[in-house]
């Protein structure tokens, strides 16, 4: 990549099933304040551009970008919304800095899932209105189809997936963001072979990362974590055309991120990958070429299964976990990998290194 970019600030709020008495604006303000304090920047004068990641129907507001500037310190500043997971926002921040139009960028994504009474019905509205929606199937059925295809193609078992879910929830016990140790719901069937204990539960939370150009000698931040490679990719949007056993979007996003970082999968020693369903972690590790990575080094935060399903903030939560580990010296090269969730077939990957 061209301009070297560093993560210079990180902040979060929530990460609980519900956040009663706190509006999404207040949730965002808390996370942004922490991130700016961590970065040592004043957003009103020292952040050049702001990227928020959200989807209208998740918020219950059309053109939701209207409602983001105040709580990010972004009033009368360059702000735009990426309708995708927060990791796409990181990719955008890297591009803004690489283009030269900004030196410092704040990236935000949040979930106030507890405001949404009908989360499943909103997910169903993402299905093709002509071909798929009339069938009346729940989106989670697509996860069942995909999981079955993956197990069939790879020889893995339901027990392998259950082990992922169990391990990630164990990891979350040492995660200070997780207030209450997560317990697995009963394994009642969702869409065979998928069961409820292998699916992440919705949660509220917000993550803000502050990115900055790292090549300003003398005046720039001293980077401890750099973003060395990014990739993002769209596989077939239609259900009828996509691969069911492979996460093609992740394969290509990771390949681009590795190429830009000049590394091979073997160089990665820490990974945080989307695990909203336990089988997705296995599928994503295959796509990233990390199937043999020590399981203790994968989703050590607990992932979405441990921290909760933060909707469009999931990818940013994965990146946040990487930043924390790299800052702590627990690893040298990390991969964060996001998936946009059902029924999408798109994802983003970011390679980070300890500086």
């Amino acid at each position, binding site marked *: 990549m061209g301009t070297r970019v560093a993560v210079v600030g990180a902040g979060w709020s929530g990460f609980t099933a519900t956040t009663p008495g706190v509006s999404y604006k207040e949730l965002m303000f808390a996370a942004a304040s922490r991130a700016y304090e961590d970065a040592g920047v004043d957003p*009103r004068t020292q952040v050049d551009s702001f990227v928020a990641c959200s989807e209208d129907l998740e918020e219950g507001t059309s*053109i939701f970008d209207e409602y983001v500037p105040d709580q990010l310190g972004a009033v009368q500043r360059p*702000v735009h919304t990426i*309708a995708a997971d927060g990791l796409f926002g990181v990719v955008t921040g890297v*591009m803004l800095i690489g283009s030269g139009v900004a030196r410092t960028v704040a990236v935000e994504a949040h979930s106030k899932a507890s405001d949404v009474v009908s989360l499943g019905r909103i997910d169903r509205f993402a299905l093709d209105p002509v071909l798929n929606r009339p069938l009346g199937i729940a989106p989670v059925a697509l996860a069942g189809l995909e999981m079955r295809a993956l197990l069939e193609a790879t020889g893995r078992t339901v027990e392998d997936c259950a082990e992922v879910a169990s391990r990630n929830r164990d990891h979350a016990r040492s995660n200070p963001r997780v207030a209450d140790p997560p317990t697995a719901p009963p394994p009642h069937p969702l869409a065979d072979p998928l069961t409820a204990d292998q699916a992440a539960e919705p949660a509220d939370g917000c993550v803000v990362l502050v990115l900055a150009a790292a090549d300003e000698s003398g005046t720039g931040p001293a980077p401890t974590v750099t973003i060395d490679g990014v990739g993002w*990719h769209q596989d077939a949007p239609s259900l009828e055309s996509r691969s069911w056993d492979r996460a093609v979007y992740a394969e290509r996003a990771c390949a681009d991120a590795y190429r830009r970082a000049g590394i091979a999968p073997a160089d990665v020693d820490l990974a945080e990958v989307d695990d909203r369903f336990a089988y997705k972690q296995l599928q994503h590790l295959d796509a990233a070429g990390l199937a043999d990575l020590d399981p203790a080094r994968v989703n050590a935060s607990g992932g979405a299964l441990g921290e909760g399903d933060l909707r469009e903030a999931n990818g940013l939560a994965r990146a946040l976990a990487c930043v924390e580990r790299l800052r702590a010296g627990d690893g040298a090269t990390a991969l964060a990998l996001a998936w946009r969730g059902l029924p999408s077939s798109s994802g983003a990957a970011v390679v980070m290194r300890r500086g």
Partner: protein
Amino acid sequence: MGKRVAVVGAGMTRFVRRAEETGKELSWIAAAAALESAGIGLDRVDAVCLGTAPDAFDGVHRKGDYLADGAGAWGKPFMRAYVGGGTGVFTPIQGWYTVASGMADVVLCVAEEKMSSCRPHPQGAFVTIFDDIIERPLEPNLLWIFALEMHRYMHAYGLEKRDIAEVAVKNKRNAVDHPAALLGQADLTVDDVLASEVLAWPVQRLDVSPISDGAVALVLASEDVAGSMTDRPVWIQGVGWNLDTTYWTNRDLVYPEYVEHAARMAYEMADVTEPRRQIHVAEPYDPFDYKELHHLEGLLLFDKGKAPEAARDGVTARDGDLPCTPSGGLLGVGNPIAAAGLMKVAELFWQLRGEAGGRQVPGTPERGVAQAWGDLMQVGTVVVLGTDGGPATTASDPPASAPPAPRATALDDAAFLAAPGAVDAAFDGSYRWDPGAAMGRFLDGLAEGVVHATVCDACGRTLVPPRAFCERCFRPTDGWAEVPATGVVETYSRCHVAWDMQPLDEPRYPAVIRLDGTSQGGFLHLLGGFTDEPTIGMRVEAVWRPPQERTGSILDIAWFRPAGEEAGS
């Protein structure tokens, strides 16, 4: 700065009221036309950028993913960005930073909107742009905010409707020469506009752009490869974007500061220091006629309050000193929201290459500016394009290649509804928004007949609506204050239609109320209980519902009436 970025191809569909084509198909038609214009195939495209506004139009959650294959993004890096109505001009900004950063050499930018899928009226998608706690309970419609802003603008500068109607006439006449236009009308007069139906005074039917379906696409290329595609690249010289506070009722609506900020950002990048001399053609956003004037001032092309005079004097005519909206704009070509904005950038591309046909402005324009606007009257997006002294083109030069003919199939309402296989689906989402700490206390206060404000000690402001943080100082607010439920009418409208554009039996009077004791604080509410027509600047007081009927809602205030008068209806 990163790599230089050129526009090397453009294409669009016709803009129609109801398209037979799906959103995916509209996207594909525009994308294919742009690729044809650039003389390349999809295999040369490294990444795709999509712009499209509310999901509610198409009736698909995550509609960016849904539209991806139509936009040519299957198997490619793909992202959707949006900033409400500003999206169309933001889409090439997204493409610009994708190329300028070195992530891609060739990017396909596609902007799509299929508004007609939204029933019973696409205006329904706009009902949910308003604040969920304090505005939606008032049952607003989109026309309100335009009418409130237009009235404020007219009041501030003493303008008459006739001054503003000139823009509608100019643009709808210009659109006659646009092959994609929905509403070109050569014989339209100012009197026609003034005689059209009053929707929400001062907004009348012919002040407004039409609901439309359509798509537009551009091909952007880096300086490394643009030369292999065309000998007449049009360069993106500057980009700018800016988003103002959500609290639109706390702003003076007379001037779009956010547009000025976006313009200054783009001009600085483009080394434009004297925009009135260095900009040769402008495509300001014109969903309503007054908005073109508003935006020309925000773009620093005219002094504040002086754009109407320039329009009246013909300065902004296609053959005027500063041709503005030679395309015909949203008022004439149509307004499929995101696509309409990108259409303006495409128009600059054609104008600067001398390919605009009957719309071509005289002389040899070398630089143009396109701008879009949206959200809660809040966002400005600006792109400056220029030829950088490339091969000269003039209106008299024959174009090297004519733009691809736009196409899309228009259906009438009956055919649209009877289309075989048409799928009806109601969105059955349900929400229970947490008002949070600040707004929760505000609502509790209303139930008690008290208006609570928060105070920021750093800037000394007293804030209504109250917030837990000061958006200007970016710090927690410091405490609470009670303010009187009296104030001044900042602007108002007399609205004759409901959200679905059906006529109301009795008009409603939305207004922005500036409350006493606040720092430009206030909110959207309704006027009532008056005998004479309200006026801007009129003092008003809240009419509270009886205590037993209050629920902790903005509706605990029934309306605002002239101060000192007895309660009316």
